[in-house]
Protein backbone atom coordinates (compact mmCIF):
# COMPACT_ATOMS: atom_id res chain seq x y z
CA UNK A 1 0.00 0.00 0.00
CA UNK A 2 2.77 2.42 0.89
CA UNK A 3 4.38 1.73 -2.50
CA UNK A 4 1.13 2.42 -4.33
CA UNK A 5 0.72 5.68 -2.41
CA UNK A 6 4.37 6.66 -2.75
CA UNK A 7 4.32 5.96 -6.47
CA UNK A 8 1.10 7.96 -6.72
CA UNK A 9 -0.71 5.03 -8.29
CA UNK A 10 -3.23 5.68 -5.52
CA UNK A 11 -4.02 9.02 -3.95
CA UNK A 12 -5.93 9.96 -0.84
CA UNK A 13 -9.06 11.78 -1.93
CA UNK A 14 -9.57 14.53 0.62
CA UNK A 15 -12.87 16.26 1.32
CA UNK A 16 -13.40 19.72 -0.13
CA UNK A 17 -13.36 21.15 3.39
CA UNK A 18 -11.83 18.68 5.83
CA UNK A 19 -13.52 18.63 9.24
CA UNK A 20 -10.82 17.72 11.75
CA UNK A 21 -9.36 14.24 11.64
CA UNK A 22 -10.67 11.93 8.94
CA UNK A 23 -12.50 8.93 10.38
CA UNK A 24 -12.55 7.06 7.10
CA UNK A 25 -10.26 7.20 4.10
CA UNK A 26 -11.00 7.07 0.40
CA UNK A 27 -8.09 6.14 -1.82
CA UNK A 28 -8.57 6.56 -5.54
CA UNK A 29 -6.61 6.06 -8.73
CA UNK A 30 -5.27 9.21 -10.42
CA UNK A 31 -7.90 8.61 -13.13
CA UNK A 32 -10.76 8.73 -10.61
CA UNK A 33 -9.19 11.74 -8.93
CA UNK A 34 -9.05 13.54 -12.28
CA UNK A 35 -12.65 12.55 -13.02
CA UNK A 36 -13.94 13.90 -9.69
CA UNK A 37 -11.95 17.12 -10.17
CA UNK A 38 -13.51 17.70 -13.58
CA UNK A 39 -10.36 17.09 -15.59
CA UNK A 40 -11.92 14.20 -17.55
CA UNK A 41 -15.54 15.21 -18.05
CA UNK A 42 -15.65 18.95 -17.45
CA UNK A 43 -19.21 20.13 -17.06
CA UNK A 44 -20.28 16.96 -15.21
CA UNK A 45 -17.67 17.10 -12.46
CA UNK A 46 -16.80 18.48 -10.01
CA UNK A 47 -20.22 17.97 -8.52
CA UNK A 48 -21.43 19.21 -5.13
CA UNK A 49 -23.27 15.99 -4.28
CA UNK A 50 -20.30 13.82 -5.27
CA UNK A 51 -18.02 15.97 -3.14
CA UNK A 52 -20.51 15.78 -0.30
CA UNK A 53 -20.46 11.98 -0.38
CA UNK A 54 -16.66 12.10 -0.12
CA UNK A 55 -17.03 14.64 2.70
CA UNK A 56 -19.60 12.55 4.61
CA UNK A 57 -17.64 9.35 4.14
CA UNK A 58 -14.36 10.89 5.27
CA UNK A 59 -15.83 12.72 8.27
CA UNK A 60 -17.46 9.54 9.59
CA UNK A 61 -20.94 10.99 9.01
CA UNK A 62 -23.97 8.90 8.14
CA UNK A 63 -23.60 6.77 5.05
CA UNK A 64 -26.11 4.12 4.01
CA UNK A 65 -24.76 0.67 3.26
CA UNK A 66 -26.18 -2.46 1.67
CA UNK A 67 -24.68 -5.89 1.13
CA UNK A 68 -27.59 -7.21 -0.90
CA UNK A 69 -29.36 -6.45 -4.15
CA UNK A 70 -31.74 -3.72 -3.09
CA UNK A 71 -34.18 -1.20 -4.45
CA UNK A 72 -32.97 1.27 -1.85
CA UNK A 73 -30.29 3.72 -2.86
CA UNK A 74 -27.35 3.11 -0.54
CA UNK A 75 -24.21 5.25 -0.61
CA UNK A 76 -22.01 2.16 -0.44
CA UNK A 77 -22.95 -1.32 -1.61
CA UNK A 78 -21.34 -4.71 -1.90
CA UNK A 79 -21.58 -6.27 -5.35
CA UNK A 80 -23.35 -9.57 -4.86
CA UNK A 81 -21.54 -12.52 -6.39
CA UNK A 82 -18.14 -10.85 -6.66
CA UNK A 83 -15.21 -11.46 -4.36
CA UNK A 84 -15.19 -8.44 -2.09
CA UNK A 85 -15.94 -5.86 -4.74
CA UNK A 86 -17.87 -2.85 -3.51
CA UNK A 87 -19.26 0.29 -5.07
CA UNK A 88 -19.37 3.82 -3.82
CA UNK A 89 -22.54 5.15 -5.41
CA UNK A 90 -22.53 8.70 -6.63
CA UNK A 91 -26.21 9.39 -7.33
CA UNK A 92 -25.26 12.69 -8.93
CA UNK A 93 -24.31 13.90 -11.44
CA UNK A 94 -27.04 12.07 -13.37
CA UNK A 95 -27.44 9.33 -14.36
CA UNK A 96 -25.18 8.38 -11.46
CA UNK A 97 -21.71 6.89 -11.17
CA UNK A 98 -20.23 3.89 -9.44
CA UNK A 99 -16.71 3.87 -8.07
CA UNK A 100 -15.87 0.17 -7.92
CA UNK A 101 -13.20 -0.95 -5.51
CA UNK A 102 -12.32 -2.95 -2.44
CA UNK A 103 -11.68 -2.35 1.24
CA UNK A 104 -8.02 -2.38 2.16
CA UNK A 105 -8.81 -2.17 5.83
CA UNK A 106 -11.71 -1.16 8.01
CA UNK A 107 -12.54 2.44 7.05
CA UNK A 108 -10.11 2.42 4.11
CA UNK A 109 -11.83 2.07 0.74
CA UNK A 110 -9.77 1.84 -2.44
CA UNK A 111 -11.72 2.97 -5.52
CA UNK A 112 -10.21 1.54 -8.68
CA UNK A 113 -12.68 1.87 -11.57
CA UNK A 114 -15.27 4.54 -12.33
CA UNK A 115 -18.39 3.57 -14.25
CA UNK A 116 -21.31 5.57 -15.46
CA UNK A 117 -24.35 3.72 -14.11
CA UNK A 118 -25.95 3.02 -17.50
CA UNK A 119 -22.70 1.74 -19.01
CA UNK A 120 -22.29 -0.67 -16.12
CA UNK A 121 -25.66 -2.34 -16.60
CA UNK A 122 -25.09 -5.95 -17.66
CA UNK A 123 -21.33 -5.66 -17.30
CA UNK A 124 -20.92 -6.26 -13.57
CA UNK A 125 -18.98 -9.57 -13.87
CA UNK A 126 -16.47 -8.06 -16.31
CA UNK A 127 -16.19 -4.84 -14.29
CA UNK A 128 -15.59 -6.78 -11.07
CA UNK A 129 -12.89 -8.87 -12.76
CA UNK A 130 -11.16 -5.67 -13.82
CA UNK A 131 -11.27 -4.39 -10.26
CA UNK A 132 -9.76 -7.61 -8.94
CA UNK A 133 -7.03 -7.51 -11.63
CA UNK A 134 -6.28 -3.85 -10.82
CA UNK A 135 -6.07 -4.70 -7.13
CA UNK A 136 -3.63 -7.53 -7.76
CA UNK A 137 -1.52 -5.26 -9.95
CA UNK A 138 -1.46 -2.38 -7.48
CA UNK A 139 -1.29 -4.31 -4.25
CA UNK A 140 0.36 -7.63 -5.10
CA UNK A 141 -0.04 -10.27 -2.42
CA UNK A 142 -2.49 -8.19 -0.38
CA UNK A 143 -5.92 -9.62 0.30
CA UNK A 144 -8.93 -7.32 0.42
CA UNK A 145 -10.44 -6.68 3.82
CA UNK A 146 -13.34 -9.00 4.56
CA UNK A 147 -16.08 -9.11 7.14
CA UNK A 148 -19.46 -10.51 7.99
CA UNK A 149 -21.19 -7.37 9.26
CA UNK A 150 -21.28 -3.80 8.01
CA UNK A 151 -19.52 -2.84 11.25
CA UNK A 152 -16.55 -4.95 10.12
CA UNK A 153 -16.05 -2.58 7.20
CA UNK A 154 -16.68 0.84 8.60
CA UNK A 155 -17.16 2.70 11.82
CA UNK A 156 -18.61 6.12 12.47
CA UNK A 157 -22.29 6.62 11.77
CA UNK A 158 -23.89 4.37 9.17
CA UNK A 159 -27.26 2.88 8.35
CA UNK A 160 -27.45 -0.74 7.35
CA UNK A 161 -30.08 -0.64 4.62
CA UNK A 162 -30.52 -4.43 4.85
CA UNK A 163 -31.91 -4.21 8.37
CA UNK A 164 -35.70 -4.14 8.62
Amino acid at each position, binding site marked *: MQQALGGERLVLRKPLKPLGDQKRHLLVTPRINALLDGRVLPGLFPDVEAE*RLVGRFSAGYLVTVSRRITKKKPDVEQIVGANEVWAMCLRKPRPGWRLLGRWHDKN*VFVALRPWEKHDLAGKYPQACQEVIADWEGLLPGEQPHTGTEVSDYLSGVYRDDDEP
Partner: protein
Amino acid sequence: MTTNRKTDPKFVRAYERGMLRSAFVSLFWGVIAERKKREGYTLQALAQSLGTNKAEVSRWFNGNPNWTLNTVASIANALNLDLRIEAVERSTGRIFTPSGVHPSTTLESMQKGAEIATTEENLTSQILKSPYRSNEKQATTEQPTEFAKAA
Protein backbone atom coordinates in the same frame (compact mmCIF):
# COMPACT_ATOMS: atom_id res chain seq x y z
CA MET B 1 -11.25 26.30 -16.18
CA THR B 2 -13.92 23.91 -14.90
CA THR B 3 -11.50 22.40 -12.42
CA ASN B 4 -11.62 25.76 -10.62
CA ARG B 5 -15.30 25.22 -9.88
CA LYS B 6 -14.21 23.71 -6.57
CA THR B 7 -12.96 27.13 -5.48
CA ASP B 8 -16.01 28.95 -6.79
CA PRO B 9 -17.68 30.53 -3.72
CA LYS B 10 -21.10 29.32 -4.91
CA PHE B 11 -19.86 25.73 -5.22
CA VAL B 12 -18.21 25.89 -1.79
CA ARG B 13 -21.31 27.42 -0.23
CA ALA B 14 -23.55 24.71 -1.71
CA TYR B 15 -21.14 22.07 -0.37
CA GLU B 16 -21.06 23.60 3.11
CA ARG B 17 -24.85 23.89 3.21
CA GLY B 18 -25.14 20.22 2.28
CA MET B 19 -22.55 19.19 4.86
CA LEU B 20 -24.36 21.09 7.62
CA ARG B 21 -27.61 19.36 6.69
CA SER B 22 -25.73 16.05 6.73
CA ALA B 23 -24.25 16.86 10.14
CA PHE B 24 -27.71 17.14 11.71
CA VAL B 25 -28.98 13.98 10.00
CA SER B 26 -25.86 12.09 11.05
CA LEU B 27 -26.02 13.41 14.61
CA PHE B 28 -29.60 12.26 15.12
CA TRP B 29 -29.09 8.93 13.34
CA GLY B 30 -26.08 8.27 15.59
CA VAL B 31 -28.35 8.68 18.64
CA ILE B 32 -31.13 6.57 17.14
CA ALA B 33 -28.78 3.75 16.10
CA GLU B 34 -27.17 3.63 19.54
CA ARG B 35 -30.54 3.52 21.29
CA LYS B 36 -31.83 0.96 18.80
CA LYS B 37 -28.93 -1.32 19.73
CA ARG B 38 -29.19 -0.78 23.50
CA GLU B 39 -32.90 -0.34 24.10
CA GLY B 40 -34.66 -1.44 20.93
CA TYR B 41 -35.67 2.13 20.11
CA THR B 42 -37.58 2.38 16.82
CA LEU B 43 -38.22 4.93 14.12
CA GLN B 44 -41.89 4.27 14.81
CA ALA B 45 -41.41 5.60 18.34
CA LEU B 46 -39.69 8.70 17.02
CA ALA B 47 -42.41 9.21 14.41
CA GLN B 48 -45.06 8.95 17.11
CA SER B 49 -43.30 11.52 19.31
CA LEU B 50 -43.13 13.88 16.36
CA GLY B 51 -46.69 13.27 15.23
CA THR B 52 -45.65 12.01 11.84
CA ASN B 53 -45.36 8.60 10.17
CA LYS B 54 -42.50 6.12 10.10
CA ALA B 55 -42.05 6.31 6.33
CA GLU B 56 -41.45 10.03 6.49
CA VAL B 57 -38.90 9.66 9.30
CA SER B 58 -37.18 6.80 7.50
CA ARG B 59 -36.89 8.90 4.34
CA TRP B 60 -35.14 11.65 6.30
CA PHE B 61 -32.32 9.29 7.17
CA ASN B 62 -31.92 8.04 3.62
CA GLY B 63 -31.75 11.45 2.08
CA ASN B 64 -30.68 15.00 2.55
CA PRO B 65 -33.54 16.80 4.28
CA ASN B 66 -33.44 20.55 4.56
CA TRP B 67 -34.96 20.71 8.03
CA THR B 68 -36.15 23.98 9.48
CA LEU B 69 -34.70 24.92 12.85
CA ASN B 70 -38.11 24.12 14.32
CA THR B 71 -37.86 20.56 13.00
CA VAL B 72 -34.33 20.22 14.38
CA ALA B 73 -35.62 21.43 17.75
CA SER B 74 -38.59 19.03 17.60
CA ILE B 75 -36.36 16.04 16.85
CA ALA B 76 -33.99 17.00 19.66
CA ASN B 77 -36.98 17.31 21.97
CA ALA B 78 -38.41 13.95 20.87
CA LEU B 79 -35.03 12.31 21.50
CA ASN B 80 -34.65 14.13 24.82
CA LEU B 81 -31.45 15.84 23.72
CA ASP B 82 -29.94 19.21 24.48
CA LEU B 83 -28.09 20.63 21.49
CA ARG B 84 -24.96 22.69 22.10
CA ILE B 85 -24.21 25.38 19.60
CA GLU B 86 -20.69 26.57 18.89
CA ALA B 87 -19.09 28.41 16.03
CA VAL B 88 -15.37 28.24 15.37
CA GLU B 89 -13.83 31.27 13.72
CA ARG B 90 -11.74 29.75 10.95
CA SER B 91 -9.07 32.44 10.91
CA THR B 92 -8.32 32.41 14.66
CA GLY B 93 -9.82 29.23 16.11
CA ARG B 94 -11.86 31.30 18.59
CA ILE B 95 -14.99 29.51 19.72
CA PHE B 96 -18.20 31.51 19.91
CA THR B 97 -21.17 30.26 21.89
CA PRO B 98 -24.64 31.83 22.23
CA SER B 99 -23.40 33.38 25.50
CA GLY B 100 -20.20 34.85 24.08
CA VAL B 101 -16.65 33.83 23.29
CA HIS B 102 -15.53 30.62 24.99
CA PRO B 103 -13.22 31.76 27.84
CA SER B 104 -10.29 29.60 26.71
CA THR B 105 -10.37 31.12 23.24
CA THR B 106 -10.60 34.88 23.85
CA LEU B 107 -7.88 36.76 22.00
CA GLU B 108 -6.30 37.66 25.37
CA SER B 109 -6.14 34.07 26.60
CA MET B 110 -4.86 32.86 23.23
CA GLN B 111 -2.17 35.57 23.30
CA LYS B 112 -1.23 34.50 26.83
CA GLY B 113 -1.02 30.90 25.63
CA ALA B 114 1.24 31.97 22.78
CA GLU B 115 3.50 33.82 25.25
CA ILE B 116 3.77 30.75 27.46
CA ALA B 117 4.54 28.62 24.42
CA THR B 118 7.23 31.08 23.32
CA THR B 119 8.81 31.01 26.78
CA GLU B 120 8.78 27.21 26.75
CA GLU B 121 10.31 27.28 23.28
CA ASN B 122 13.13 29.54 24.54
CA LEU B 123 13.75 27.24 27.47
CA THR B 124 13.82 24.24 25.16
CA SER B 125 16.25 25.89 22.78
CA GLN B 126 18.46 26.86 25.74
CA ILE B 127 18.46 23.28 26.94
CA LEU B 128 19.23 22.03 23.43
CA LYS B 129 22.16 24.44 23.19
CA SER B 130 23.45 23.45 26.63
CA PRO B 131 27.00 22.04 26.61
CA TYR B 132 25.81 19.41 29.08
CA ARG B 133 23.42 17.94 26.54
CA SER B 134 24.41 14.53 25.33
CA ASN B 135 24.98 13.83 21.65
CA GLU B 136 21.88 11.71 21.37
CA LYS B 137 19.89 12.13 18.20
CA GLN B 138 17.06 14.65 18.34
CA ALA B 139 13.71 12.94 18.16
CA THR B 140 11.91 13.71 14.97
CA THR B 141 8.80 15.81 15.35
CA GLU B 142 7.29 14.40 12.21
CA GLN B 143 4.23 12.38 13.09
CA PRO B 144 2.83 9.74 10.79
CA THR B 145 -0.49 10.70 9.31
CA GLU B 146 -3.55 9.00 10.63
CA PHE B 147 -3.84 7.03 7.43
CA ALA B 148 -0.24 5.82 7.62
CA LYS B 149 -1.02 4.56 11.11
CA ALA B 150 -4.21 2.90 9.94
CA ALA B 151 -2.48 1.33 6.95
